[in-house]
């Protein structure tokens, strides 16, 4: 069984370790807090190590396909569970396992006093498994499978404190809104399959290249249907409504799932299937009013509109996590807009930098919330700069990166997107610049109100720096 094992088959470990961890915790150890946490953290660290190994080994390779598993095979419907290692997935692997490792460790401090820590780490491992499945997937149906699993792990984690009615409602809302997007996604997959007779990315791409006219007739519809899935996961207008409510989950979850990785899955998926959008657009008769627009134009405008509207909403929020949530929405709009402006590279660049600085901001917010005894209103904080110096300086760095101040990473990636916009659409360029200004405004407001001035509540008065496992001091 193992004699044909190739080095790239080790990539399966990246996927299987979190699954094993989730299964072990769910079946055996969920009552033991420490042990569950240890299992989960070990799994994600090992995944990260293997990912780094894969990155080093294959970073020059164009495409590596570890041995796949024949999952379903009925007539024309052939679905593999197979991994795909290329520059895109290798980069995303590092982002997901890297941010994931940090947040697992941070969670150990943040969730220490919760009596369901076992369940928490079990769900977190399930999430890592599902997310890595999307990243590594080599076909559309497998992407959809893990897409749904990501949805359910997000449901479990948003509703982690299910006794709070607001959390119970929020997780339901998140799942159903995502399902609305997935409804389009699955139809898009079926449409692609019915044309290309395959769901494998390689095969579909080859088919599209050899049958441009046949594909042109459905390209726009199929592309937009698949984009529906991205609208759900990446919370694009009008399916953005679930993300602010999802902040009911524990803060490390908001950092990992609702800022760095899951919400970026939509953007990642769009970059993965970008070849679907290349064809010349022909709309069917009943959509004739769309003539002159391509599917990518529509995507760019939805992204741009989301970026603007979310930034405007962020300006008038008072809850520290909700401000960051709307900011995430706005940045996701940026990325989607970049894809729509035929700039998937710029989009992935911003996705990567955003994953790190936004996770940092959320972890900082978590530290503040932890110190202020679960107070989230920034107007009840104030003066935290002196009391929590580590949190303050790291939060400030994250803010500067988000605002695009050189030499921090946000500057380069945002610049790349603005440059792409200026090449393609002046109107979207102006809109994006306006959003960048708004971002600076609402983030400065957050930092100035929460960290400067005098303390405005008893909790803030008694705040002190978070434990080492959270700050890394």
């Amino acid at each position: 069984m193992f004699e044909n094992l190739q080095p790239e088959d080790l990539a399966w470990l990246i996927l299987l370790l979190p699954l094993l961890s989730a299964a072990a915790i769910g079946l055996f150890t969920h009552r033991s807090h420490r042990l569950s946490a240890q299992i989960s953290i070990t799994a994600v660290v090992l995944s990260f190590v293997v990912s780094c190994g894969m990155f080093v080994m294959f970073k020059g390779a164009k495409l590596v396909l570890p041995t796949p598993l024949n999952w379903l095979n009925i007539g024309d419907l052939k679905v593999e569970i197979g991994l795909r290692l290329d520059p895109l997935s290798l980069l995303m692997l590092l982002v997901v396992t890297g941010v994931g490792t940090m947040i697992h460790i941070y969670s150990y401090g943040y969730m220490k006093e919760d009596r369901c820590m076992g369940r928490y780490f079990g769900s977190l491992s399930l999430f890592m498994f599902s997310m890595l499945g999307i990243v590594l997937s080599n076909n559309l149906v497998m992407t959809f499978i893990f897409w749904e699993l990501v949805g359910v792990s997000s449901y479990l984690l948003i509703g982690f404190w299910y006794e709070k009615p607001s959390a119970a409602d929020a997780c339901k809302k998140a799942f159903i809104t995502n399902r609305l997007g997935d409804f389009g996604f699955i139809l898009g997959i079926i449409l692609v399959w019915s044309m290309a007779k395959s769901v494998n990315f390689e095969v579909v791409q080859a088919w599209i290249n050899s049958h441009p006219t046949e594909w042109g007739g459905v390209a726009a519809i199929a592309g937009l249907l698949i984009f529906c899935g991205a609208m759900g996961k990446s919370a694009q207008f009008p399916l953005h409504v679930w993300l602010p409510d999802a902040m009911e989950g524990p803060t490390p979850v908001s950092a990992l799932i609702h800022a760095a990785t899951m919400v970026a899955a939509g953007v990642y998926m769009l970059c993965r299937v970008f070849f679907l959008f290349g064809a010349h657009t022909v709309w069917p008769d009943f959509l004739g009013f769309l003539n002159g627009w391509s599917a990518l134009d529509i995507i760019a405008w939805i992204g741009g509109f989301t970026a603007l509207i979310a930034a405007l909403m962020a300006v008038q929020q008072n809850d520290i996590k909700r401000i960051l949530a709307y900011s995430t929405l706005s940045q996701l709009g940026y990325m989607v807009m970049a894809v729509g402006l035929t700039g998937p590279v710029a989009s992935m660049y911003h996705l990567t930098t955003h994953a790190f600085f936004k996770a940092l901001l959320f972890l900082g917010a978590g530290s503040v919330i932890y110190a202020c005894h679960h107070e989230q209103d920034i107007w009840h904080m104030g003066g935290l700069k002196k009391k929590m110096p580590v949190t303050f300086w790291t939060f400030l760095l994250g803010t500067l990166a988000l605002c695009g101040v050189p030499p921090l990473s946000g500057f380069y990636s945002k610049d790349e997107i603005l440059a792409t916009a200026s090449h393609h659409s002046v109107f979207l360029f102006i809109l994006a610049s306006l959003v960048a200004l708004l971002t600076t405004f609402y983030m400065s407001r957050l930092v100035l109100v929460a960290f400067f001035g005098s303390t405005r509540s008893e909790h803030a008065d008694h705040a002190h720096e978070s434990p080492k496992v959270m700050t890394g001091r």
Partner: protein
Amino acid sequence: MLTSIILLPFLAALVILFTPRNYRVVFRGVALLATLGSLLVATKMFLGYEAAEAGVGGYKFIEKAAWVPSLGINYFVGVDGINVGLIFMGAIVAFAAACVSWEIKTNEKLYYLLLMVMTGGILGAFASLDLFFFYAFHEFALIPTFIMIGLWGRGENKNYATFNITLYLSAGALIALVGLIGLYLQVPAAQRTFDIVALTDYFRANPMAANVQHFIFPLLMFGFGILVSLWPFHTWAPLGYGAAPTATAMLHAGVLKKFGLYGLIRIALPLMPEGAKDWLNVLALLCLGNILYCGWVAMRQRDLNQLIGNSSVAHMGFVFLGIASLNLIGVTGAVVVMIAHGLLAALTFALSGYIRTQTNTLNMDEMGGLLRKLPFIGAALVMAMMAGCGLPGFANFVGELSVMFGAWKASFGHAKWFVVAAAWGGLVIGAIYMLRAVRSVLHGELSDKWNSVEDAVLWRKTPFVLLLAALLAFGFWPRLLTDKIKPSAEAIVKMATSGKAVALESVKR
């Protein structure tokens, strides 16, 4: 092998019959042992299916004995890829149903007697390759259903529900019987037989006249359809399941209901391709009633059992759609949904039955926060609800996915829009009612009145663990099922789509 699977429950019924009525432990022990025995043999059969030698008509594990030679009635059992999974699923559900029967505290002798007869009938119906036994075993299973709902049923609507389900199902069975007799009479007197394999061979060589097919096919379609709660003849289902004792609801919704679908796939499609071609359009239209309308109805329910009952009716729509698509992917998907839904329906009714024994109500408005008191049952319910709205990892997803892919390629008019509607029903409507149930039963604040609620102890977890494990196993490795189903489904689809040639031949003759 098949005979022992069927016979064990009947033997158990006999033992129970001759046991004094106060030996409660014996009834329960015998029932558990017999169903466990059936389950073990069925597992051996399922795992050994590929290696077994194929006999007449491609069937395996064939056993045959003459019964009434003058009428051509034989005891004839055997399995192919389609019923091997169904029998395995039926045996799992039967054991689980025997396990959850601890909630019955009155007149146990009669209860277990009926339960065993019902189990034996169900397993026999799916194994029979003789029309007479096929139908008779079904009646053996159906009649105990009515009695059990009438005697051990619950709720104010119990009598009305019994009345309703008896009328509907008897009518359905009767219409199907008329169709089957019509089919039987189409064979010339000298060659008449109840042997399904021989009938199939005969009609393959001598297709039935097209106008006869047009007449007989709808009899079977609606007759069997009523048995499966085809919209708009579905109203008995939520009502009956709401009132039925847990084990009866599990066995009927899980396994016995699939009999009608099995009959459609095994008999109606291959023997009457012309009839199928015309009437499957109607079936496709009606299945939207199941998927959409019953889904909407399920959304409005405040009683957990009513919700599960309606959702079970809605899921049947996917099987009908798969059958109507009449291609390999669709029919294979339909069989997978049948098996997956059997396990799921049994699981959800078992869970709601457990919750009811603890809370004495199934009104979701009164519940809330039960996850705190019921970590195991609650987790199982969340998993069941997720399986019900088509989450990958559970067998239901594989089936529904294949049905949608298959229906997209179906030849009936506007097939693509049917897929759009099915996806809406499965992904969106399904998620809404399933998550609403989780929200109202498990999430939210715990009321003080549920302080005495207790989670399942170790051995009471058995049926839930077993059903969940089967759902997950088939969800993770769907080829366990599809590789068996595919060749058999291919043969059936091939016969069912040979309609054109048949019509021409019958005109020539």
